């Protein structure tokens, strides 16, 4: 039966032993730039050693991928960019996880150096790192062949994993070259001219099967949930139901006397139960009674606050405000306006609802001064630093084994539950697998913040939007303001955009596309309302009165073409449109909806989306990301809301936190990419969901003449709007 240690323990060991051939490790230069060199050279430079890429004499190429995998395909797409530039035979490439060492495997520089796969960053952040490394390795192989054959390197070319001297018809495979290569003291310089031209790409732009998919259809993919270590025990934590509550006392004797229960452990923010099986631990959870100190916890009621407080904060001129974006003179534009529009919107808390409840495994060495963690994490480096900080360890005392993630969506980039299992394992003195139950995952969840928004626009004498104000009031700080800037697609000369944050002790976190879902909803629904009030076609209003950018115009024109915008849909259906930016990409979406009026149920039949995603590295995976974003957007807008009552989250599982099921999915989703002026990839993991709410709201107006202002558009809310 399965031993469960395949990727992280066995393969890596074999890999290092068996790497006869040529290995390219990475050393970090004094300036923070990447310097590729052999392990031996890197060792001389006193750097950490790890072979990022190895070419074995049998032509197998092994690349350690820093693309944390939660379904977006980046474990494949990131190393594929390296393979492309070195002209590797992709069918002979094997992947393993890169260790959690951001100094080697991270992107960015200085304090911003990171391995975090968040914000749709994986492909765009690693593009230049990977292609530079690839071009360097290819040069080393070419130089080796040139020297072996005594010919000028300029006479050589490569085919996948083969160097060829066409005039003498000599060939050597990369594996053969690896056996004889003299690794240079330092890697050759490469410049833009050394990179392949897009027409030379063999892998980029041509969909390759994702590396992880075979293991995901036969049950062998290793999630952290699946790790089992010798002598391992199971744990689950009960955190205070009231956010911010602290454990005082609990029925320790009773619970520890239950079958299979080894101990209970007081943590800073909860009680962990440790036992010999997860079933016994779950049974004990039901019997655990904890006295919580809720003195510091606030008896917060989210609906009351959203309904009553935020509008007052917005109306209060002395309320603390953080400027998000400012341009021209907004006050003057409003003072001189021919007409002013103003609209308000609201949005509820939302939960990630990733399919794999949060879990991690920790194992200490006998001396207790080193811990090994198994975590499916968007940020292995952050898991490592968070565990180290929590234990009072240095990072050298923490090793992190990456696993597949059963969904991330922003929740798995913190390492908080990994730090928790480390604390538990130190007490338990055994390897521990910590599993939060689904109920715990929600009750102790971290949410997309709720908020209120006010948008105002000043139209000049020509009917053009000359002034723009957008204020968001809600829970949290910077998590509120992403997507507020319209500057990437609309050129409004005078703008003032600010946020006014509050704190209610609710745990907040980045959620897919962070603040874009609610900000883009408010922006694009506001614009649609203005267009209708002005008696101008909503597309023409965006193009002319909002002064759209050429790039924005292109995605609109594409999606208009794809969807047949302007045609008369069936009498019981309507179309709606919206644009968004995210992570350097631009997208426009059209939805076709119908309505069950008695149920208040919006049915979404078709979705079209045109995306400017820069250079598209893997088209099918890119499309899959956008399809996923569209469904995630639809799901959140039609169903998903978290409410907090008396300080506690009210929802507990998928019955009261509904997510989209197959019967609600659109019959058709069409995604196409526009020709882009961007030479590099831009982010695609979060471009799909932000435009969906406004597109649906606009379609809803076209169908009913009524306006939706509060996300999500639950059936009750829709019925209320219809009867108003």
């Amino acid at each position, binding site marked *: *039966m*399965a031993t*469960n240690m395949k990727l992280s323990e066995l393969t890596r060991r074999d890999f290092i032993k068996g790497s006869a051939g040529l290995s390219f490790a990475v050393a970090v230069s004094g300036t923070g730039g990447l310097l590729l060199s052999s392990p031996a050279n890197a060792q001389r430079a006193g750097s950490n050693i790890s072979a990022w890429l190895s070419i074995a004499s049998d032509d197998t190429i092994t690349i350690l991928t820093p693309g944390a995998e*939660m*379904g*977006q395909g980046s474990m494949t797409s990131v190393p594929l960019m390296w393979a492309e530039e070195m002209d590797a035979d992709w069918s002979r490439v094997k992947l393993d996880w890169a260790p959690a060492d951001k100094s080697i495997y991270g992107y960015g520089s200085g304090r911003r150096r990171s391995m975090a796969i968040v914000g749709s960053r994986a492909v765009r952040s690693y593009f230049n790192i990977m292609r530079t490394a690839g071009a360097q390795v290819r040069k080393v192989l070419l130089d080796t062949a040139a020297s072996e054959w005594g010919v000028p390197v300029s006479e050589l070319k490569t085919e996948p994993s083969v160097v060829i001297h066409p005039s003498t018809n000599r060939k050597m495979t990369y594996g053969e070259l690896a056996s004889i290569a003299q690794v240079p003291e330092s890697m050759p310089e490469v410049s833009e001219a050394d990179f392949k031209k897009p027409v030379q790409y063999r892998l980029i732009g041509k969909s390759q*099967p*994702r590396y*992880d*998919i*075979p*293991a*995901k*259809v*036969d*049950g062998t*993919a*290793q*999630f952290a*949930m*699946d790790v*089992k270590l010798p002598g391992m025990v*199971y744990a689950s934590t009960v955190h205070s139901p009231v956010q911010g509550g602290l454990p005082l006392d609990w029925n320790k004797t009773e619970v520890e006397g239950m*079958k299979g229960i080894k101990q209970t452990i007081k943590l800073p923010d909860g009680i962990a139960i440790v036992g010999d*099986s*997860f*079933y*016994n631990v779950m049974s004990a959870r039901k019997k655990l009674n904890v006295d919580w100190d809720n003195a510091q916890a606030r008896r917060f009621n989210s609906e009351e606050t959203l309904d009553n407080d935020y509008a007052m904060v917005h109306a209060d001129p002395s309320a603390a405000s953080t400027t998000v974006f400012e341009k021209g003179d907004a006050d003057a534009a409003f003072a001189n306006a021919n007409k002013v529009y103003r609209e308000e919107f609201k949005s509820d808390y939302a939960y990630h*609802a*990733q*399919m*794999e409840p949060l879990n991690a495994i920790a194992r200490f060495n006998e001396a207790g001064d080193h811990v090994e963690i198994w975590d499916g994490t968007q940020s292995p480096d952050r898991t490592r630093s968070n565990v180290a900080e929590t234990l009072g360890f240095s990072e050298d005392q923490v090793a992190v084994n990456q696993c*597949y993630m*059963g*969904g*991330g*969506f922003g929740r798995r980039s913190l390492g908080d539950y990994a730090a928790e299992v480390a604390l538990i394992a130190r007490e338990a003195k055994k390897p521990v697998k910590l*599993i939060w*139950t*689904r*109920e715990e995952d929600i009750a102790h969840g971290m949410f997309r913040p709720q908020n209120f928004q006010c948008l105002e626009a000043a139209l000049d004498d020509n009917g053009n939007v000359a002034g723009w104000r957008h204020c968001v009031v809600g829970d949290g700080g910077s998590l509120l303001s992403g997507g507020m800037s319209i500057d990437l697609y609309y050129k409004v000369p005078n703008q003032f955009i600010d946020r006014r944050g509050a704190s209610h002790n609710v745990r907040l976190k980045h959620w897919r596309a962070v603040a874009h879902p609610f900000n883009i909803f408010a922006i694009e629904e506001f614009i649609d309302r203005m267009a209708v009030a002005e008696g101008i076609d909503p597309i023409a209003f965006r193009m002319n009165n909002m002064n759209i950018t050429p790039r924005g115009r292109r995605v609109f024109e594409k999606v208009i073409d794809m969807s047949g915008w302007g045609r008369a849909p069936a009498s019981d259906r309507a179309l709606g449109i919206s644009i968004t930016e995210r992570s350097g990409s631009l997208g426009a979406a059209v939805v076709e909806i119908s309505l069950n009026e008695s149920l208040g149920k919006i049915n979404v039949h078709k979705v079209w989306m045109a995306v400017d995603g820069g250079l598209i590295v893997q088209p099918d995976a890119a499309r*899959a990301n956008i*399809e*996923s*974003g*569209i*469904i*995630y957007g639809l*799901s959140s807008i039609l169903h998903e809301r978290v409410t907090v009552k008396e300080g506690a989250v009210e929802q507990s*599982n*998928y*019955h009261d936190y509904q*997510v*989209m*099921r*197959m*019967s609600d*999915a*659109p019959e058709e*989703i069409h995604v196409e990419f526009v020709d882009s002026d961007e030479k590099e990839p831009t982010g695609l993991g979060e471009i799909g969901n932000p435009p969906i709410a406004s597109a649906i709201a606009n379609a809803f107006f076209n169908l009913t003449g009524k306006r939706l202002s509060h996300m999500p558009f639950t059936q009750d809310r829709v019925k209320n709007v219809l009867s108003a």
Partner: protein
Amino acid sequence: MVQFTLNGNPVSLDVDEETPLLWAIRDHVDLNGTKYGCGAGLCGACTVHINGRAMRSCSIKVGDVVNTSITTIEGLSPDASHPLQKAWVAEQVPQCGYCQSGQIMKAAELLAENPNPSRDEIIRHMDGNICRCGTYNRILAAIERAAMEG
């Protein structure tokens, strides 16, 4: 001792009969393809076949499956060659992949009893299985492909 057949092999477990089948399979037999998603029969990630019927293993006591024949994703085919598994790869269905064992097992029940399901029949059959990555349209396409290619 609880005895049943698992993927064609006799299994005998010294385990509390109240233990959900899911945890018996995962933690006592060490077959990890069957997933814990909700623990309440709401999401379908734990779907296995019991005497050929797709069931939620998180909500069935192991004591209630004595002498039954259980199939998990690991036993659906010896080498990922079931038409659905091939179709899942061809359509590049999985994203995070966590729900997909359950999706495939649920779909396998459908094709076993209805080799050429209509689109509506597929949707009705699959509606209990959540995919948070939203791969529903590809799941549909893969089931249609598997039905066609058999």
